[in-house]
């Protein structure tokens, strides 16, 4: 049918304009700002050109380095845990058990709960060393040394946060991988079972190769989510501290707005540089993942 020019413009302009305002303009401006020394939001006019000085400084700042290590750990260790559990759950959910919808919903539920609430519950209840869940659990098992662990101490808080993040994320990734697995024709599985293959063999040799595309999408989603991690670290701070474990996004926020502990000086230019680094990480990892998963499509 014929589309009139006015309708074309009317329908597309609001979205495009808003997109330009929220994404295009800020991205370009941040890239620009990252090359300057800027000390406050209102004095961007007096910025001094620094070239790549902000970037150099960024990579030699201990907190930033630590934050990069944190997301690398989260990406790899957390990724293995999340995907491992997702595979496991997918395997279980497709083995013909009853109440499948119920379990599926139960697995996904943590993902819809407010992250601040999740962090609060885990820090104040699960990890609490006096009356918390793990405390009681380990005591009941007689593992008193484990029960006394200070999960939210400086040494352990990153791992505590990682565990919580894994718990929250498993749901989404199970659903995604499950979706991919359920597209595989049932004849393949029946043939395998007739040959005597067990649950694990079937998963390894049939399911896994045939869900490559879905795995690619899932990997990109996981990576982008980890790189941009902001809310959980901030909400995971025990009472009296600002941040439990740093991620680049949190560090960026503190650089731009200052913080009561940790980063003290507002460095908007450096924050912008951090933002560009994050963007670069997202682009690089997406490209890498797409390359890793490039393969001919299986016909089935």
């Amino acid at each position, binding site marked *: *049918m014929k589309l009139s020019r006015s309708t*074309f413009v*009317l*329908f597309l302009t*609001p*979205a495009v304009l*808003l*997109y330009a*305002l*929220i*994404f295009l303009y*800020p*991205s370009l*401006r*941040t890239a620009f700002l990252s090359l300057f020394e800027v000390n406050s939001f*209102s004095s961007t006019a007096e910025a001094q050109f620094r070239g790549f000085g902000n970037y150099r400084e960024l990579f030699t700042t201990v907190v930033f380095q630590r934050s990069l290590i944190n997301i690398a750990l989260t990406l790899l260790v957390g990724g293995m845990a999340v995907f491992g559990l997702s595979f496991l*759950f997918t395997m*279980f959910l*497709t*083995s*013909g*058990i009853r109440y499948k919808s119920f*379990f599926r*919903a*139960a697995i*996904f*539920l*943590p993902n*819809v*709960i*407010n992250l*601040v*609430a999740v962090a609060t*519950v885990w820090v104040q*209840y699960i990890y609490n060393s006096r*009356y918390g*869940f793990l405390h009681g659990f380990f005591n009941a098992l007689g593992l008193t040394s484990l029960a006394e662990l200070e999960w939210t101490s400086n040494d352990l808080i990153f791992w505590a946060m990682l565990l919580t993040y894994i718990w929250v994320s498993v749901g*989404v990734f199970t*659903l995604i991988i*499950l979706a*991919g697995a359920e597209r*595989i*024709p*049932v004849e393949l599985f029946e043939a395998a079972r007739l040959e005597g293959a067990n649950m694990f063999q079937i998963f390894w040799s049939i399911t896994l190769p045939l869900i490559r*595309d879905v795995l690619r*999408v*899932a990997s990109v989603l996981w990576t982008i989510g980890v*790189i941009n991690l*902001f*809310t959980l670290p901030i*909400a995971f701070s025990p*009472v009296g501290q600002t941040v439990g474990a740093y991620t680049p*996004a949190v560090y960026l*926020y503190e650089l*731009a*707005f200052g913080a009561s502990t940790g980063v003290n000086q507002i460095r908007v230019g450096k924050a912008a540089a951090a*933002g560009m680094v994050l*963007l670069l990480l*997202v682009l690089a990892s*997406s490209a890498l993942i797409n390359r890793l998963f490039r393969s001919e499509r299986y016909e089935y």
Partner: protein
Amino acid sequence: MPELLVPQRMQLAKPAKRLLWLGQVPAYLTLGLWTLFLVFMVSWIVLASLSTTRGIFTNDLLGHGFHFENYSKALGTLNMGRYLLNTLVYVCIALVLIVGVSAPASYILSRFEFRGRRLLTQMFVAGMGIPGVLLLIPLYTLFLRLRLDSNPLSLILVYVGISIPFTVFFLTGFFSTLPREVQEAAAVDGCSDRQTFWRVMLPLAQPGIATVTIFNFLGLWNEYFWALVLVNTPEQRTLSLGLQALLQDMRYSGDWAGLFAAVVIVVLPTIVFFVWQSERIIAGVTAGAVK
């Protein structure tokens, strides 16, 4: 009969019942443990929210009866009621605007050929991967200059903006599944292109719009970053900010029972919503995954 139309693709053909059951024990065990943990956690929180702070610390929940006043205190003195209202207002307005802006654009992008269409579509999709923190500084500076830096309007604007890429991505996919004949029939009947959209295509797109609105709702209801930047004052806060502020206040107040009551207030809407719409939500995630 639904079971025939949507076969359980991975059901076994004719398994021996006992062998099947044995093989599924690990499955039931693991899934059962997971669910048990969830139930235990939620129960404890609810019980704690109805106890006293002393009761919590001495592992003696509900030892002194049900303290429903924790909730009235949380809603009133601790301001969770106001935060709830704020969040409701901001999110609902944003949800309507998101659809209003994205649906027409998705319609055009999915059903009409024009130069630059591919580029435009890819541009929107790319927006899904752009880190929010990258946009922070220039947007905040902009709002600062317009004196909108501590204003719900700017938050709503940002909420709409950041939701466009996903919504356009989703709705474009959805619109492309709608039959072309309906569109042509409407044209034959004398509808202009706008009327066709408004009277015919949009109603047909309701399931897709409902699904994407649910996703946007969940994302925005639980949003933290932009709310922190743009509306972090006691009058304007959202639930996420309110809870975090309450948590930091624990330093002085030590009202743990009240804290858990606030937690329940924050998560109850989404849990209820999720239970009500779980089929649709899960179907949406599933559909998106294999697109």
